[in-house]
């Protein structure tokens, strides 16, 4: 997978289905954005069934990260630039 795994991230959920990840993000965060598959976040192009939900909390983004053999993870990473881009795209 991409270099995202070399970055500083926190795993909020692991080995879940993509839909479970989407529901978790939708239910647990106030500021949520919808993006299409292939949206570039950090250095990766997001994989998923649309709508892909990305949340913002303080200075972090919360997003689904899919691995072919290990299912979906929900990751939390600091990302001021990514937050700006998400807010601007609304």
């Amino acid at each position, binding site marked *: *997978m*991409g270099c995202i795994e070399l970055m500083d991230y926190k795993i909020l959920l692991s080995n879940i*289905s*993509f839909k479970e990840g989407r529901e978790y993000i939708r239910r647990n965060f106030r500021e949520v954005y919808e993006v*299409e*598959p*292939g949206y*570039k976040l950090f250095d*990766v*192009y*997001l*994989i*998923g*069934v*649309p709508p892909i939900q990305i949340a913002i909390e303080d200075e972090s983004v919360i997003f689904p990260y*899919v*691995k*072919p*053999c*290990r*299912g*979906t993870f929900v990751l939390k990473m600091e990302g001021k630039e990514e937050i700006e881009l998400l807010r601007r795209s609304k």
Partner: protein
Amino acid sequence: MKKATNKKDALLLLGCPELPVQTSIALYLANRLTNAGMEVFIAGTDAALELLKVSDPDGHYVDVEKIIKLDKCIESLAEKRMDFYLCSVFVHNDAGIAYLATVHGISKAKLFAIIFGSDADSISEQIEFKCGKLVAKAVHNPLPLKRKIDATMKEVKRWAVSN
């Protein structure tokens, strides 16, 4: 990596290689598509691609220059630097559905889901967008999936000839 450019380019996008049928069906489909006049590219995880290379050491079925790492393939499709006429995505788990939906969103290719594994029917029902589906409860024995491919190849040959 050779760049896919023409209307006869086909992509096989492999999933997690934990189910034995995937590698044999990928090689079989690559061979059938090549014989039908298509240029076949294959993308997958490192392990899925190594399985292919070890199974086909002399590159009879898959040209090494047309093997693409999964992340690189998604990146090239998302950035519109590459696209295909036909794309078959191998799906046997939830992540496979996510990859299929992603290719549906970022590529203009005629899309086929090759759905296999013990939960093939349930996985097929979860795919809510329009695409071709070849569904077989194949895990160890590739023949049920091979039969589905053989039945579909007539249509693929027609595309290849008419373009």
